[in-house]
């Protein structure tokens, strides 16, 4: 069973269509990255999944509960953990009291274990908390009842690099225990690091949804090479090379063909040095982003 099933979900605010006919599934036990720049509509999708916003049309199921059925959805929230992008707590109460309050509504079997990794000053009132401390408190309440599904909206914002790393490891171990993680982010490197699949959202449209590895694979290889002699660009470039930049006898490009063929070709050219790496998701993201921009420009042009 899919942990999340989204079917033609649309949220129209009148002047803005924050989610436009979005459909996707998140399978149980995977880390799904929901990627897009700020304002793309990621939070709108999450809020609809949790019943905070009602969709204009379309629907979704979360752990099998229809989001239009409040009772079913409320029951399922026993097994869901949510970390919102903007965290609001009662400022005058201490972190300890906040956790006690949340624990009284839902269980907190893993509170102590989580406090070993994330350690906000629990005896101090929230108004004295730094951004990172607020985020850590939020993380503890998200995970302390050992949820089956974790929904996180920009979870690492405000965390220092060490805590970010801890969170990434924690989410991976959660996934290995069978927890489903739905994770929205505009930070590409973390999505690339921990997500199994990724959905890319732009201006309310789901542009693509793919396995992170195949997305990277399809993005070709990033190649940097130095040749023994300076060649004309036209003599050097093949059909499988994209974004070629050549200065003197050094060149870098994205290669979409087979690596074996590339090596044979470079060998013939008497190559001195070659460095082949996976492209950064950022580059692929840019590609989708630009591509869809053109598409949506055409679409709105057609509408007129």
């Amino acid at each position, binding site marked *: 069973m899919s942990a999340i099933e989204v079917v033609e979900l649309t949220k129209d605010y009148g002047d803005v269509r924050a989610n436009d006919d979005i459909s996707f599934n998140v399978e149980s036990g995977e880390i799904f990255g929901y990627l897009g720049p700020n304002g793309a509509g990621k939070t709108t999708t999450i809020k609809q999944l949790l*019943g*905070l916003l009602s969709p204009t049309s379309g629907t979704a199921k979360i752990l099998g509960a229809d989001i239009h059925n*409040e*009772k079913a959805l409320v029951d399922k929230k026993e097994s*869901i953990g949510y970390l919102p992008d903007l965290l609001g707590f*009662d400022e005058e109460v201490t972190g300890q009291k906040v956790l006690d309050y*949340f624990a009284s509504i*839902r269980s907190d079997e893993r509170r102590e274990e989580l406090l070993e990794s994330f350690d906000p000053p629990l005896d101090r009132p929230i108004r004295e908390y730094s951004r990172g401390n607020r985020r850590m408190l939020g993380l503890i309440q998200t995970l302390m009842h050992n949820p089956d599904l974790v929904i996180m909206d920009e979870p690492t914002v405000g965390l220092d690099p060490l805590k970010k790393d801890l969170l990434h490891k924690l989410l991976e171990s959660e996934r290995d225990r069978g927890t489903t993680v739905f994770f929205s982010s505009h930070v590409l490197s973390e999505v690339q690091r921990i997500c199994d699949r990724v959905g890319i959202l732009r201006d309310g449209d789901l542009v693509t949804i793919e396995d992170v590895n195949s997305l990277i694979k399809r993005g070709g290889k990033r190649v940097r090479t130095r040749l023994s002699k300076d060649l004309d660009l036209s003599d050097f470039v093949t059909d499988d090379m994209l974004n070629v930049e050549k200065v003197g006898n050094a060149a870098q490009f994205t290669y979409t063909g087979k690596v074996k063929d590339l090596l044979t070709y470079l060998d013939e050219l008497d190559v001195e040095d070659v460095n082949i790496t996976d492209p950064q998701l950022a580059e692929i993201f840019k590609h989708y982003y630009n591509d869809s921009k053109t598409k949506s420009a055409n679409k709105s042009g057609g509408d007129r």
Partner: protein
Amino acid sequence: MFEILYYEGKRRLRSSTVLTILFSALALFYISFFPSVKEMGEEMMAGLPDAVIEMFGGLGAFTTIEGYLAAEVYIIFWTVFVGIYFAYSAANLIVNDIQKEKMDLVLSYPVSRRQIIIEKTSAFGVPLLLLNAVVPVAIYIGISLIGETIEPLRLVMVHLLSIPYLLVCIAIGLFLSVVVDRAKIARYASIGAIFGLYLISNIISMAKNFEWIGLITPSHYFDPPKILRQATYNYTNATILLIAFFVIFIASMEIFKRKDI
């Protein structure tokens, strides 16, 4: 079940205690003035024609402890200021939590919107009980200290019958809290609403042709002078207020259930 009520009730305990102490002190302060007011009032009334005395609320409006309490403590402070306190706090209840991003988190827990609004509103039971239990005792003691007497039942009844009135104030604040999108506006509107409704009920009572407008004001149904001076307890009016509370509360709940957070 009831975790929200317990948490919110505990949070209200401190402000309720402060308010209770403040009101008790204020009431005692006013009571301490009564002997000189009585003396002055009696002298003044003696020289006035009946029609003028009637305008001021009749003989005894200020010169009996019951009339003095009703006018100074229960109309001004209880009906207006305590009413505003409840409406203002209720105006914050929903919209402030939404604006401060607290509602998102609570709604990600296994609680329904209905449960949230019911339990959060029920937490007003703490200030309602505390104020209505402590203030009359303080007033009774204060009255004894200045050598006056008052029938305890009248004091009990004025507080008991003020509860439906204060519940309506809560409902008005709550309604604003679910329909207005900014906490600050909801809070200001709640002050305006309670004060405005009180003024309307006062002004209208003098304009004979427009008395019906007064029927929509909650203070029309809560009359401290009648309770304290005449020991007239109008249960019909209290019932009307209770019905108004439930109608506005249920309307607010239905709006909240459908609201985008």
